[in-house]
């Protein structure tokens, strides 16, 4: 869980297909992301071992051909656990981003369209949510409503709302004064219709970039919550909890902590690169500076 470092400029019309493949960040990032997603999807059909069957006698094995990443403290195959864990991470992060977008974007657009009191109240509400340290609040929420994937999603999702509201509002505010909007208004279109038909398409790129970043943050947040035992619950594996369980066994089996950690790093790295790449492609001004 961390801070989005960049304030976004209004992007010009997207024309990224041309340059997409030549942008290094985008190419690497999308490859990694696709790979992780493929791994998660594959786990629905096939994993090397069935992780619901425990063979405690095989516990804490090192790396071998049979178990490329070794086995955990209950004798489960770590590669299989990581594959299924990817599912969990991705699902939690996607839904959390979905909540953030689903609630935040309409709010942001509404604030930008109406201005005045609505805008003021909404932004103060944003400040209020931002004033709560996100991780602490997520811990509170999961501790109150019980640990589990669903509550982790909600906890992470809530804190995505003001992020998207802010981005959508900023984006929308910069679109509103433009001429084609004025034309639409002159043609008698209502604010709602304009928001949906003209504003939204113009800020989609912005939201996409922010979405990628929040996705990556969501994966980190989920890992943190799981590490504290507040995320997905057994028998569903999660990367964060695998790290927690590995921690006590690091002197006997360091590989236990290695692979789930790497899985998180690689996934987050992939998404961040993808986000950077997208921004470069969508925001020509920044690209010029590279």
């Amino acid at each position, binding site marked *: 869980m961390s801070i989005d470092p960049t304030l976004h400029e209004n992007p010009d019309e997207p024309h990224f297909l041309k340059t997409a493949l030549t942008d290094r960040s985008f190419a690497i990032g999308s490859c990694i992301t696709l790979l992780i997603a493929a791994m998660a999807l594959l786990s629905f059909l096939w994993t090397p071992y069935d992780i*619901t*069957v*425990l063979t*405690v*006698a095989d*516990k*804490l094995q090192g790396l071998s051909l049979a178990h490329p990443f070794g086995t955990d*403290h*209950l004798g489960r195959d770590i590669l299989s656990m990581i594959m299924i864990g990817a599912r969990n991470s991705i699902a939690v992060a996607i839904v959390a981003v979905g909540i953030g977008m689903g609630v935040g974007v309409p709010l942001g657009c509404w604030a930008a369209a109406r201005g005045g009191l609505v805008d003021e109240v909404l932004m103060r509400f944003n400040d209020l949510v931002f004033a709560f340290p996100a991780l602490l609040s997520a811990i509170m929420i999961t*501790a109150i409503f*019980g*640990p589990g994937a669903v509550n982790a999603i909600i906890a992470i999702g809530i804190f995505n709302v003001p992020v998207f509201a802010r981005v959508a509002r900023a984006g929308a505010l910069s679109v509103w004064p433009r001429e084609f909007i004025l034309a639409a208004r002159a043609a008698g279109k209502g604010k709602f219709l304009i928001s949906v038909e003209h504003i939204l398409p113009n800020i989609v790129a912005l939201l996409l970039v922010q979405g990628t970043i929040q996705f990556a943050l969501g994966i980190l947040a989920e890992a943190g919550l799981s590490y504290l*035992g507040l995320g997905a*619950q*057994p*028998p569903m594996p999660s990367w964060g909890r695998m790290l*927690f369980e590995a*921690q*006590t*066994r*690091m*002197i*006997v*089996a360091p590989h236990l902590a290695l692979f789930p950690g790497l899985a998180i790093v690689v996934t987050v790295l992939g998404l961040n690169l993808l986000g950077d790449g997208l921004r470069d492609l969508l925001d020509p001004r920044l690209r010029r500076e590279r």
Partner: protein
Amino acid sequence: MKTIKSIIGGAALLLAAGTAALAARTDLVVGVVLEPPHLDPTASAAAAIDEIVYANLFQGLTRVGRNGAVEPSLAESWDVSEDGKVYTFKLHTGVKFHDGTDFDAEDVKFTLDRARAEDSTNAQKQLFAAIDTVEAVDPQTVKVTLKTPQGAFLYNMGWGDAVIVAPESADGNKEKPIGTGPFKFDSWAKGSAVRLVRNPDYWGDPVALEKAEFRIVPDAAAAIPALLSGDVQAFPQMPVGDALSQIESDPRFVVKIGATEGETILAMNNGKEPFNNLKVRQAIAHALNRPEIIAGAGYSEAPEIGSHFSPANSAYVDLTGTYPYDPANAKELLAEAGYPDGFKATLKLPPPPYARQGGEVVASQLRQIGIDLQIIPVEWAQWLEQVFKNKDYDLSIVSHTEPNDINIYARDDYYFNYSNPAFKEVINTLDVTSDPERRADLYKTAQKIIAEDAVNGFLFQLPKIGVWDAKLQGLWENSPIQANDLTEVKWTD
């Protein structure tokens, strides 16, 4: 990699050798898992309090020794009347509380009266329930009269909840405990450590340690590095998990696997469908593969149990074979009970690793006979509220660490929802029996009844994995009572 490590390790050893040339140490850092809520053992059932203050800071009339026997403490001797109702305690002379006030019979009377008073918040009021009157005959003599003879009275007086406190300081004991023990309270850094110092005016044999610190080390993840780096020199009960083998092979440490009073059970809600059906409970008992659960819970060895009784107790009977591991038989029993395809249920697991990890293994074993368990991890607070108090659960895993607590199966309204008049009868007889042999027989009968009723899944006796510096002597290997008695602990060279 290995060579670099050994070179660096060698350098570290040299450094360590340089400092070891000094005289024997007189300080000790002991690692404990739970932080006490406060330090008054007479106002809470929290074992974390007794693990720090028992025998070190506070003393009772009697005490429980390292082998579980009742020994004299502040009372140097006692007489019991013919009818077993009047106990006359002869107290030690020259005993002072840490604040300098004298200890005498009035303090004993104050303590016992306070504990059994109407507004008492003593968590173990039943320890004092048998007391009718307490009389300070003279400063060195106390006469306690019981309503009915009670076989376990002297043992009860040895609990941490029955330690003697002074009227002058009793109310402040939570924050600044004042007792009569060989150590005095020094400071408490909340969340971190409780520090004790030697009591120079101690009435008994002086202790070897000058300073003792109980450091709160919540889990294995923190405990292992703390031990390996020498920050903590002793863990009377170390959360160590699978790293045990590594530590056992390290010559710097000794590992003592002792017994505790912790019967670890798969608690079943006997009052709820389908667990009110004996066949279902028997099926579950047959489906449990204890060695695998023990290994999964992170123990290399732990005594299996077949009933709610400590194998260390002389009245123990081995009932582990009552319902041996037999999944096929378990399935048949389930079918007979009307669940040929099994059923769904929940398994609520409190935080300790034996529950969380053991629970995963139990869930996987029960899944093999068709019982599909949803694991719900709960914090202790929620466990107490939901499982213990409101009995809102199907299955749970927990270790019952109170000594000799088989009588909980006779309690109405206990969270097992178990009720068997025959069992209650046995416990009632036990309460008024003081003949040791008769008592042992009754204990054996009690064990058999609950084993055959498969009230709970009886898993294993929680081992006490004590790990400490090889140069330390005098720590307890077993824990017959929740205590870390440091009176005989010393460093050797």
